[in-house]
């Protein structure tokens, strides 16, 4: 039976085209790969090849015809010995009606207002729990030990490497040099070069090797000497690590931690002083952590290493040397998506994370002297975000100020503000104010650098503004 040759789609967006030229005539024998016609699309003139072999029966569309819709029959192809008058078999290569129907259904669904919970919810809302988890991070009466953030991070890695042979650390100067910031000090001696791997200066390359090793069944910890250098590797982080589970329909998970100092240190200027929290928090498929205290650094890093997903773990050089209480427990972890109320208060909610917490807590102390009691929330993880804890607090204080070191445009604070406007509009007695770093590349000069960074005094002023005091 004769088959129809249909007008082909020759680009992702083509709906119709011009049949510029026939390169075969009726009665010609063609085989797979022979050019049948030249077809002009909106972009180019394309050669259209035969797929099946046979004899050209009828040319149904004349040379030069414009606006020929995709899937219109343009010729018939005869099998050996068949007559050109043989009835074509139009059904042979037509898209089934059922597929059209389902396509229509899909577009209806897209237009319909919130048809099903699954289609209506946003990724953001999916992590929202109505009641915040207010359980303490460790049982009351647990012995506490003072420890620096640096020691806490080192302990977390050592404990997890002890626990799971598939965990290894790779990065620049992590081994023999004992860590550029001494986070990995002693780990090479303890675990050997197989599991503490010094890399050449090749962020793009070793980030990709880490992701591949995670696909291959290991649990890499990839240390970036600073997150500024991770911009050389961001394609592997975003396109390979974050998206592959989805693109593989759930087959190919990527359990990996990318960690290292993030944000401004001191006097290292624009290329070495940037907070990437909002960048990575924008990416579905990543989890993003930015701890402030040593206890959180330890508990969250252990959780990050065990997590089956790619985790961005943003540390801070200035905090490395600060000491905090850390519980003495055999296996202390902090779950993702659980914010911490670092200070109770009733007049305003200050939402922060990472080193922003230092400014937020300092501001809260100053405000208390003036009779304003601030509740300070440490988000700890930026993806997922614990909206429930923020919401509950704002419902109590009716005011909110966010504090972070990053740039103001597209900041975490912007996102929290928008979320509160959508979900707590009636609870707010004042606009939410975002305290951020200034909208400038970080300057080198000491006085300008101070000016560019967020300060406790700016937070105090923002709180006075939203409390009208």
């Amino acid at each position, binding site marked *: 039976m004769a088959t129809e040759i249909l007008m082909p789609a020759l680009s992702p967006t083509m709906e119709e085209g011009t049949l510029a030229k026939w390169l075969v005539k009726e009665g010609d024998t063609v085989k797979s790969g022979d050019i049948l016609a030249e077809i002009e699309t909106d972009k*180019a003139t394309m050669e259209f090849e035969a797929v099946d072999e046979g004899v050209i029966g009828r040319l149904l569309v004349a040379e030069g015809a414009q606006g020929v819709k995709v899937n219109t029959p343009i010729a018939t192809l005869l099998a050996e010995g068949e007559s050109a008058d043989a009835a074509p078999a139009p059904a042979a290569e037509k898209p089934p009606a059922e597929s059209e129907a389902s396509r229509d259904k899909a577009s209806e669904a897209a237009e319909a207002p919130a048809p099903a919970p699954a289609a209506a919810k946003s990724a953001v809302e999916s992590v929202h729990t109505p009641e915040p988890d207010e359980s303490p991070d460790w049982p009351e009466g647990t012995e506490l030990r003072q420890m620096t953030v640096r020691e806490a991070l080192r302990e977390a890695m050592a404990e997890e490497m002890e626990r799971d042979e598939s965990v290894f650390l790779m990065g620049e100067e992590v081994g023999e040099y004992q860590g550029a910031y001494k986070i990995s000090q002693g780990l090479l001696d303890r675990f050997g070069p197989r599991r503490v791997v010094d890399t050449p200066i090749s962020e793009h390359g070793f980030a990709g090797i880490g992701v591949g090793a995670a696909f291959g069944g290991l649990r890499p910890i990839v240390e970036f000497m600073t997150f500024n250098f991770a911009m050389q590797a961001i394609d592997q982080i975003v396109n390979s690590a974050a998206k592959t589970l989805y693109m593989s329909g759930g087959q190919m998970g990527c359990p990996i931690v990318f960690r290292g100092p993030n944000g401004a240190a001191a006097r290292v200027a624009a290329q070495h002083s940037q907070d990437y929290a909002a960048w990575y928090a924008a990416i579905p498929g990543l989890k993003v952590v930015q701890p402030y205290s040593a206890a959180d650094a330890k508990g969250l890093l252990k959780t990050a290493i065990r997590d089956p997903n790619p985790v961005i773990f943003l540390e801070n050089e200035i905090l490395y040397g600060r000491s905090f209480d850390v519980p003495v427990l055999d296996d202390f972890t902090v779950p993702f998506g659980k914010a911490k109320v670092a200070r109770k208060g009733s007049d305003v909610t200050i939402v922060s994370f990472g080193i922003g917490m230092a400014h937020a807590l300092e501001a809260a102390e100053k405000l208390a002297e003036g009779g304003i009691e601030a509740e300070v929330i440490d988000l700890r993880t930026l993806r997922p975000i614990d909206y429930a804890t923020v919401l509950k607090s704002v419902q109590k204080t009716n005011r909110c100020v966010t504090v972070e070191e990053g740039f103001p445009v597209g900041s975490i604070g912007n996102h929290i503000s928008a979320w509160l406007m959508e979900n707590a509009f009636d609870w707010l007695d004042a606009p939410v104010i975002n305290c951020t770093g200034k909208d400038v590349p970080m300057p080198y000069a000491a006085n300008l650098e101070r000016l560019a960074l967020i300060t406790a005094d700016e937070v105090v002023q923002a709180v006075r503004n939203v409390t009208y005091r």
Partner: protein
Amino acid sequence: MARKPAETAQPPQQPNVSRDELLKYYREMLLIRRFEEKAGQLYGMGLIGGFCHLYIGQEAVVVGLEAAAKEGDKRITSYRDHGHMLASGMKARGVMAELTGRIGGYSKGKGGSMHMFSREKHFYGGHGIVAAQVPLGAGLAFADKYKGNDNVTFTYFGDGAANQGQVYETYNMAELWELPVVFVIENNQYAMGTSMKRSTKSTTLFGRGEAFGIPGEQVDGMDVLAVKAAGEKAVAHCRAGKGPYILEMMTYRYRGHSMSDPAKYRTREEVQKMRDERDPIEHVRQLLLQGGHAAEDDLKAIDKDIKDIVNDSADFARESPEPPLEELWTDIYADDVPQQSSQDVNA
């Protein structure tokens, strides 16, 4: 030995290869060819969307290298990946249904032509960013070396990808750490529309490995037997713990870079000459016929069988439903990783 495909065809000699092997290569290459032709057809009908990069012409490369692989070996490639999947044993149905964006596809319709995976067949994608798969492939090899097994990873990339910086970062580390990875450069001579001559003054691509201490060679990628022989050599090098090896496969794609490429950067005659004189499937066909291994009728039966498989895959790909709307929200995060547990490392 190292022979560029542009040179004229030589009369097929009768190499030392069994009838079964030849038939297997013929069958596997033909499956890829017919599958890709069908994919092109479905694209033309609007059933396949977006980008679609066909492998027609390059079949001998994956089929020859798969013949050199053993169970447990891994493979990873770029977006021109349909042939690699079929050669690794993935089902035509699942691949075609992914092309049409249906739930029956390997990625449930969420990856498409460029992003497909199969843990079962050790196929690690299907990657859409040019050369990103190169460090990923070295990472897979890193994992195998870490676990202490003798698996090898075939990391495929094109002559275009060979100009990306991350390839050389990877070469450096792969040799430094003696990773068991075969870097397979599929040199089809055009990086989209830019010929190799217009991209680099290097005359070979495998030669760039020398700077890092990686051995390699150029191979006639239109000759499945030459590919297999080179593959065996490379794999032996890796399994012996000697580190990576580079194979530069001189090959040719008959179709444009993607379905929407009019391919005006080369002449029709150039393509036709390659088809007429160097076609990898015709080569094996002639070996079978002239060696008295098979009659025309035997091959016709195989042709029909392949056609049936491909038509069945196309039917399946059209009948399989689109993914349910709930699928929008699944597989963003893993509750647990569907892969080897840490036990196989701890063991």
